[in-house]
């Protein structure tokens, strides 16, 4: 009986020849990522050692990454003090992959890990962030965990009592229409599966539309797999993965591609053709409340957000700039742009995208999670509506329970900013 990608990765990491869905394993962790919540991880980590006579020591500091992105620059003395404590801990433990608040090497964790080549096909990646599923875009098994579980990983170097998930296979065929892409595909899939349709399962993506997709788009797909409840989203590594790792992430060493066996056993197989897919919108207040754009076109909006770990990459900014070039956004709309990393910010600056967006009326902010989770920037007023390229629209998500958030692709967000209401980016299309 063959294995899925998730089974193969977990078998290798657990030093077994074969594992199957439902087995309980203790995989070695290749990369353990945290952001500001490292402050809590440190607290739990130190507690593990209490009364043991052992010195608190991370099993392998070169495999730990800490990236400040959720509240950057700090919005409060409390956050600033937490960040200070984390910095001190990073120094004392010799943690290597630390990304502070910086314009050159800083950014959002789910962009920093791929662009620095920290994630490789076949890796086991854990992160104290639910969108850690993103890194399945590079053929890794990557999943979100809580702070206490991370403390345990820091102590032992393994993830304890992990149940091997069953896998849903999604085969994507056809060719996207203009201004339709990865975000529309994943929103469509979440609408079909529902917010819990993939709970405790992995999703493995196949098909010609995936093979033709760049890593930037694959990151969108895997990032949002968790919105269907998936433990992990995985795109088996291929030529594009190698291209990205070599030419964009500067990886020099050997890259092993992990592919599923021909006779791998799947929980279910879903086929999707994207040829007729139109832009998809997730409507308030759940990510699976997905509708084709024609059902909500014309909805008046007050704020547009382009950015985040989902859609803050160079091609996202490029498409927004192409739509807004030489035009002005509607008077009643505030448009906030958050590039996903300092590197992307610089690239977008050099290519003129940021200048174009600013000339159209957008405010370009520093890389970070920004308003996505309602912490310190871009809050909404009572009764206001946002259209955002981020990944969640839960009630109160952007900091105000008396507001609503719609989710879309960058193309729809840019076109809608021009009109002041949700609008199709293709002229004349509905």
């Amino acid at each position: 009986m063959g294995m899925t990608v998730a089974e193969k990765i977990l078998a290798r990491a657990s030093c077994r020849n074969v594992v199957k869905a439902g087995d309980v394993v203790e995989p070695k962790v290749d990369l353990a990522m945290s952001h500001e919540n490292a402050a809590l991880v440190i607290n739990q980590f130190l507690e593990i050692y209490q009364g043991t006579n052992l010195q608190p020591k991370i099993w392998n500091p070169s495999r730990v990454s800490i990236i400040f992105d959720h509240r950057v620059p700090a919005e409060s003395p409390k956050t600033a003090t937490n960040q200070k404590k984390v910095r001190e801990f990073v120094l004392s433990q010799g943690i290597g992959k630390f990304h502070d608040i910086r314009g050159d090497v800083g950014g959002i964790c789910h962009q920093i890990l791929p662009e620095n080549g920290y994630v490789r096909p076949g890796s086991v990646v854990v992160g104290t962030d639910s969108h850690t599923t993103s890194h399945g875009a590079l053929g890794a098994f990557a999943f979100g965990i809580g702070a206490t579980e991370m403390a345990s990983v820091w102590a032992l170097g393994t993830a304890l009592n992990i149940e091997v998930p069953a896998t849903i296979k999604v085969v994507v065929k056809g060719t996207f229409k203009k201004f339709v892409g990865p975000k529309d595909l994943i929103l469509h899939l979440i609408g079909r599966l529902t917010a819990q349709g993939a709970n405790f399962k992995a999703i493995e993506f196949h098909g010609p539309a995936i093979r033709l997709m760049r890593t930037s788009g694959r990151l969108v797909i895997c990032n949002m797999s968790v919105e269907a409840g998936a433990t992990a989203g995985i795109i088996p590594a291929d030529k594009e993965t190698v291209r990205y790792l070599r030419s964009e992430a500067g990886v020099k060493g050997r890259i092993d591609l992990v592919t599923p066996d021909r006779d791998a056993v799947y929980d279910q197989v879903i086929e999707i053709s994207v040829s007729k897919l139109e832009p998809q919108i997730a409507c308030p207040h759940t990510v699976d409340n997905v509708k084709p754009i024609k059902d909500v076109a014309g909805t008046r909006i007050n704020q547009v957000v382009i950015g985040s770990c989902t859609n803050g990459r160079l091609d996202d900014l490029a498409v927004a700039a192409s739509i807004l070039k030489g035009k002005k956004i509607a008077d009643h709309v505030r448009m906030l742009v958050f590039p996903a990393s300092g590197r992307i910010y610089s690239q977008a600056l050099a290519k003129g995208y940021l200048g174009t967006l600013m000339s159209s009326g957008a405010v370009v902010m520093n890389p970070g999670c920004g308003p996505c989770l309602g912490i310190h920037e871009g809050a909404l007023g009572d009764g206001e509506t946002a259209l955002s390229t981020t990944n969640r629209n839960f009630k109160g998500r952007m900091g105000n329970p008396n507001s609503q958030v719609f989710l879309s692709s960058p193309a729809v967000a840019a076109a809608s900013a021009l009109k002041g209401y949700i609008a199709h980016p293709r002229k004349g299309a509905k």
Partner: protein
Amino acid sequence: MGKVVLKLADDISTDVIYPGRFMATVLPTETPQYAFADLTEFNAALRGNQIAPGSIIVGGHNFGCGSSREQAVSTLKGHQLTIVARGFARIFLQNGINLGLRTVVCPDVEASEGDELEITELEIINKSSGKRFSVIPLPSARQAIIDAGGLIPYTRKLLIERTGRAF
């Protein structure tokens, strides 16, 4: 025996349980004040100690979906609440087990606010309606963590065993 103090719908996210704007607060000793902060009446009742320890929240499917923030568990644990749901999101369920929040998976549960529930290993008995509902037991791998008193003592034990072996 506990009283149902809050009945919730499907897909209750961790943003609802512990809004993002309080995420700079991380310590389990400090998070309880922000439980369900945007359900202002319920939050006030919790902070005013009007909710007895052992009280029960009944949720629908996919309880605790969304962000992995552990505050969403420590904030409920701090009030010694029990969460009964038709189903849980993975990370929330695991965080609950790790921190010792009592979570009960009961796919068919029917209960209203004010009902008294008796929860056993096998079933939930709704004393107010007289109905009984089967409980899905936790997988043994997760039960081991609960039996150890949570993930911190569980890891501590393994760490000592393995460090001993290394020397």
